[in-house]
């Protein structure tokens, strides 16, 4: 596991299982692993996911409204899956050392 590696490396590594993940699942996992508490860090990690998606490494596959306030009440939740390009970049960055 890529502990103490850059956050985007770890996010890509989590997606390398090729399964679909909701953004709030990834964000809370990273917050816990890196001991990054608070709303500011939550939004910052979420922006990392948005950047990975805009770089073509993750794909936004499903959205739903956060009715229960699981992440941010009344906002959209996004589900992502890794792309082929993301697999290449992710394994370049993460798997070389494993």
């Amino acid at each position: 596991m890529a502990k103490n590696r850059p956050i985007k490396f770890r996010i890509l590594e989590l997606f390398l299982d090729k399964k679909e993940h909701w953004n709030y699942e990834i964000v809370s996992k990273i917050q816990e692993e890196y001991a990054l508490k608070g709303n500011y860090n939550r939004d910052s990690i979420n922006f990392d996911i948005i950047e990975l998606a805009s770089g073509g490494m993750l794909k936004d596959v499903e959205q739903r409204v956060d009715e229960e306030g699981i992440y941010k009440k009344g906002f959209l939740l996004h589900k992502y899956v890794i792309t082929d390009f993301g697999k290449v970049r992710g394994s370049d960055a993460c798997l070389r050392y494993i």
Partner: protein
Amino acid sequence: MDLQALKRQESKRKISKGYMWALFCAVFWGIWYLPGTVIWVLNPFDEMYGLLAGKEGEAVSLVVTAVLITAFNALTVMLALMLWNGVLGKYGELVRTLKEFNPCSKWFFLASIFGGPIAILGSFMAMGFIGGAFAAVAALLYPVIGSVLAYYWYGEKISKRAALGILVIILGGITIFGGGLVTELAVGDVPWIGYLGGLMAAAGWGIEGAIAGKGLDISEPDVGLTLRFVGENIIWWIILVPLLAIVGYPMYSFALQAFEPLTLLVLIFAGITFGFCYVCWYKSFPLIGVGRGQGIGNLYGLCAIIFIFLFFGDVPEWTILLGGALCVLGSFIMFTEEPSELETLRGE
């Protein structure tokens, strides 16, 4: 609120924020040419230039003085970005990223070679010898170099629309460089080093972008950009400035004299504007796409001309105005493609 309405609201918010960052980038980048031009007439740099010009000739003097100015620029940019990372609480991530030399940070150090001693040094040379407006507009040619490199290195496609944009930018470049040259050839006094500096700015930034992208897409840009400037500081302060001092240029005695209030103020102003134009640029990319981000960012050419006019009262040659307009038009043609076209441009 239903899903569709929320989606529309989210994308609207993303787009307006993205355009805001890109516009900030253009304004900061344009303002940077003010301190960049002013610094040449301030102590100790004007004294250094005068002293060396008497001994070694104007050309050598200009390049050596530009080295010291660029080195100080790199230093203040790095300090501004370090402060920024401190405010964002990203020192932990900075160290984590620095340690990943092979997959990540080596690209930032490589990029700094092209960004610093080629692009930024070239810009200062162009500002010193020809003027801020020329320096700003000449660098607008960088997307041409960038996309040709991306085509050869990682097979990124160049669409018909992008090719048309490149053509318009090249026409603009010919106008900018050719227009000045024609009048100067007639007079018989051509500031070749200034033109070389303009070309260095365009080529250096094009190459820098293509290389830095490899590290930036898997790191946080705030952190990545800081490392890119750490690399540039190593190049200047640990390699090139000592090397020039060993060869016999009075680098250190003039460097120490830079700690005057007005000079420091101008250098800090340069550091803040240049550092934050990079930060804003990269913040805009995930929100509106790299293409639109760069297209809007390139408005810096116009911003620079406007600020130089407002602060110095200089009206540039009509060839620079026309060429600059063509370059901005070309970058809009090149970068404002439909998102569906853009998505397939990369990787697959």
